[in-house]
């Protein structure tokens, strides 16, 4: 999960919340669990695959899904269009150089750099590895770019029976991250003003950083105490079940997406075995 305003740790990104997405951007409207459970067999298949064919299929599938199902700005489209081939090329060549030379010694030499000869076998290993990485990224990003953390937690509580007391409090804790940054700045300024551990260099800065740990934790625990008082006051956790404000239903389209993903994975597996 990256990009967007507020970065990876803003779990509540308004720009990708399901009710706000239009019909055409169908990935946002799917249940987050379907977007995780669908690609999991594919991830395992990609990890186990030894040829270029399997990861290539999933790179193409994920590219098609993301291009048709996500909202894109022109700038990020161009970035992705340049970054993906560049990523595969750079990683492909570096994995080529790391490939075990003894295993590929019998394959024909494609070109030479000085005394170092690059064989077709090494190139194949290198680019298979790079494509595998790209496929794994794609499979994770298809769901990751189109879901929010809160929706995933709500869906897990409603459908996977994750205890809601844990789900919602963990969610509340992620909201502490921006607070920590602010608090750290305050503590740092307070220590500076009082002249604690002055000086330059690594030793002084380490001593200063160690001095921030206890005040930072104290502030965090105090705030957590207030949050839990507020939750207790609203009888959070008093009952076994909880009425949900936002329903994250599992609809027919979620089943279609998930089973479709599994069928595609099975088809790729069969095809990979057939062409070998």
């Amino acid at each position, binding site marked *: 999960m990256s990009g967007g305003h507020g970065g990876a740790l803003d779990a509540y990104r308004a720009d990708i919340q399901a009710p706000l997405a239009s019909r055409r951007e169908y990935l946002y409207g799917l249940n987050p669990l379907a977007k995780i459970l669908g690609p999991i067999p594919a991830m395992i298949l990609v990890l186990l695959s030894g040829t270029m064919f399997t990861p290539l299929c999933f790179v193409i599938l994920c590219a098609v899904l993301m291009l048709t199902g996500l909202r894109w700005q022109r700038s990020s489209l161009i970035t992705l269009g340049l970054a993906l081939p560049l990523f595969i090329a750079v990683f492909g060549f570096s994995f080529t150089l790391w490939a075990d030379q003894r295993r590929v010694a019998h394959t024909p030499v494609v070109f030479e750099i000085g005394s170092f000869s690059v064989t077709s076998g090494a190139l194949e290993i290198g680019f298979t590895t790079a494509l595998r990485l790209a496929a794994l990224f794609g499979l994770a990003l298809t769901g990751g770019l189109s879901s929010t953390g809160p929706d995933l937690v709500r869906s897990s509580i409603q459908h996977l029976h994750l205890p809601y*007391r*844990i789900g919602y409090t963990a969610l509340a*804790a992620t909201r502490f991250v921006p607070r920590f940054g602010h608090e750290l700045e305050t503590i740092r300024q307070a220590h500076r003003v009082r002249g604690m551990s002055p000086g330059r260099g690594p030793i002084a800065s380490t001593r200063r950083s160690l001095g921030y740990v206890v005040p930072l934790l104290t502030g*965090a625990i105090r705030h957590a105490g207030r949050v839990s008082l507020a939750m207790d006051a609203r009888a959070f956790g008093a009952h076994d079940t909880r009425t949900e404000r936002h329903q994250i239903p599992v609809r027919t389209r979620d089943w279609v997406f998930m089973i479709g993903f599994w069928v595609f994975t099975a088809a790729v597996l069969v095809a990979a075995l057939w062409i070998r």
Partner: protein
Amino acid sequence: MSINEKATVSSRPNFRWRVVDIVVASVLGVAVALIFVAFNLGWSGIKAPFEAVLPGFQGLLEPVWYIGGVLGALVIRKPGAAIYVETVAALVSALVGNQWGGFSTIEAGLVQGLGAEIIFLLFAYRVWNLPVTLLAGATAGIFGAVNSIIFWSPGASWGFITVYVGAQIIGGALIAGLLVWFAVKGLAATGALNRFAVGRSLGVRV
């Protein structure tokens, strides 16, 4: 120096997690994750001089990654606190991103949390003194060391394994044990832990 001596509340501990326990454990997890992130960034630079002294000696510092388990258990004092805090910390630091990848980070967090948890479980979550804390830190070190040997240096020589595990045990007791013990004492002294048994026994009422 048992810290239960001054406890005025009933001696029978309540093992059910209250809301404040879950929230504080989650927040501790996130806070520890931030320490991990900072440590991850500097790790290659930090470990170089130690590795140069003796390969495996960097294990002395790796227990910085195990502080979550002991810290969580000492503050919350409930079953599962060590595993929960360490796993949340690993999860958050994996989400932020590091050089080891998501799955292995979370798996390592689980194993390291388990190492600390087992010791507190052995003492039935009733003994919360310094020796048990040191033991928990050292055990987290053993679990963490075995886990990294299996995943990151399979087929390592016995010499390396001995140095590495030994360094992790000592480092675990010192960093994940002693250091965390004093951190919790410091926290209790501020009064922030007054809603917890540890604050009532270690801290000063303010």
